């Protein structure tokens, strides 16, 4: 992940601004590059797309995906929708929250993990499901979650 860089952001915006409906592709590109969408991007986007800053704010805050600040070094997205509930995801989530000392939607104090709630990953035949740094895991018990966390920490 690159540190926020306004020039780089401007050039990403420029690459995409001609697309029809360019706003979401731009926001995704910024978040892919920097891990979040920095406030300073708002006026840049507004100007490039010829819309108001309020509109850009409104879109960023509408969607669950877009982050306002730098997330942890690892992102653990835990599914808490019905299929995963039926396989005990609530217990796994509680276990992970306790272990990391952060709730879903929060980042650990040491900045190592961000926990996110997601509602279905399309892996419902192998619930409970998670996505760790974009990699899918199924049948995630508390033990498997511990293993994944240990493994990430070992490699850090």
């Amino acid at each position, binding site marked *: 992940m690159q540190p926020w860089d306004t020039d780089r952001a401007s050039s990403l915006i420029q690459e995409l601004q001609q697309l*029809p409906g360019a706003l979401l592709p731009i926001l995704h590109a910024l978040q892919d590059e920097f891990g979040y969408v920095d406030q300073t991007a708002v006026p840049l986007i507004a100007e490039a797309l010829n819309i108001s800053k309020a509109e850009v704010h409104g879109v*960023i805050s509408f969607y669950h995906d877009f982050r306002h600040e730098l997330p942890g070094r690892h992102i653990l997205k835990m599914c808490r929708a019905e299929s995963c509930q039926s396989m005990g995801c609530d217990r796994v989530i509680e276990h992970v929250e306790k272990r990391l000392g952060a709730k879903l939607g929060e980042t650990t104090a040491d900045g190592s993990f961000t926990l996110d709630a997601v509602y279905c990953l399309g892996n419902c035949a192998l619930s409970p499901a998670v996505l760790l740094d974009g990699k899918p895991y199924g049948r995630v018990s508390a033990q498997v979650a511990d293993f994944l966390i240990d493994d990430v920490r070992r490699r850090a």
Partner: protein
Amino acid sequence: MKVFVPCDMAALSVGADAVARAISEQVAARRLDVTVVRNGSRGMFWLEPLVEVETAKGRVAYGPVTAESVQGLFDAGFLEGKAHTLCLGPTEEIPYLKKQERLTFARCGIVDPLSLSDYVSRDGYKGLQRALTMTPEALVEEVTQSGLRGRGGAGFPTGIKWKTVLHAAADQKYIVCNADEGDSGTYADRMIMEGDPFVLIEGMTIAGFAVGATSGYIYLRSEYPHAFKTLKRAIAIAYEKGYLGADVAGSGKHFDLDVRLGAGAYICGEETSLLESLEGKRGQIRPKPPLPAIEGLFGKPTVVNNVISLATVPIILDKGADFYKDFGMGRSRGTLTIQLAGNIKYGGLVEKAFGITLREAIYDFGGGTHSGRSFRAVQVGGPLGAYFPESLLDTPLDYEAFAAKKGLVGHGGIVVFDDTVDLARQARFAMEFCAIESCGKCTPCRIGSTRGVEVIDRIIANQDRMKNLEVLDDLCELMLDGSLCALGGLTPYPVLSAVQHFPEDFDKPAVPPPPAQMAPKGQESSSWR
């Protein structure tokens, strides 16, 4: 010689990449002439990673394979299809697959998803070839005659929607594929996009020719990064080989296609909200009328169809409307891609003609619960679908039969719960989910759902239980009648069905309300405001 290891996201989630690596290592160490093909999934997820070898007798399956078991498989001679404790026999003979009627999923799990020659050699682009000989009117009529109804949830006849767009005069029209697949318990869209993306591309191209649209978008949920990569590459290949662009398959006809990512909003699966999102706006519902078929994307006539609806079009054109219509029951024609999920022993994709009962799906295919405990409830049709008890399991999977029981076939997801489930908690979650995902446009949904969570918390805590059950009833009625779209309008179904079929769960000893509640995103305090 070929060995197949799925690259389907679900297979990856249980170690398919490590298995593929282990196989490649053995191949190198033993100096064998073996190609490892990354196919889609056959949809038998309890057997993933399911490895297949191509033998003289056809494909033989082994599963679930672990990286550790790979060496033993080679030692046992699995390349010749020999016996091993993981051997499942010829893939096509596995009863779970053999009992299915795979039309839309005919190729999924068999081909290399990014091999256009695999696609073409297995009837790919035959539908398009026939479509190119037909007038747009005849094409639309063929789809209408097939009886195909939208698989995204509402079950609206696809041909009729297309007809409206065909007859709308405009300088530009669009085909939009709804790949938002937000319902818990569903993954058919994901599987076909990862396992046979060209069938979706072909279906959208045919739709474009049918209604006179030269541009298409796939709106894909961001939770599907693997499908995104596969679609991007498949689209690039289709352009390269002349199946997309200014001269599709040498016909002189034009069709462009792109894929766009959503951003984690369930409501963007609703078609008007999806269109707003594609235009780069907040995903708020548009009032209907105008229908998207008249004023859709960028104000132009637009077909919005689900992935499975569009991916079913090629086989309808190839084999004809009558062939397709022969499957099914009543007004539900063709096949339903049932997705068995939740607490179920044999979770997976079951493509069957409409009409099999819920019981057959859950027991004959699914094998009952995963935990081995007794069955208690099933939610069909995603988070807006009703919870059914045992006594409703003989309901056939058919749009009308389900509606008669106040249920929803929806996108065909079946989520099973064992006897540890607490339906009061599930009802609470239904309201909570509605609060989290509400687009905020109308009060019954936005405020009602938050109130609903509070009321159910009071019921669980045994505060004025009888009175609060009445309040809940009134609230549900308000949401049913007063919501602009089906998120607010259908959330009462899981809630009321839980109360109706499982009253004992609302009559348990008091449990105090949980201390921390998830705040819906829109209500989080943010440094941005």
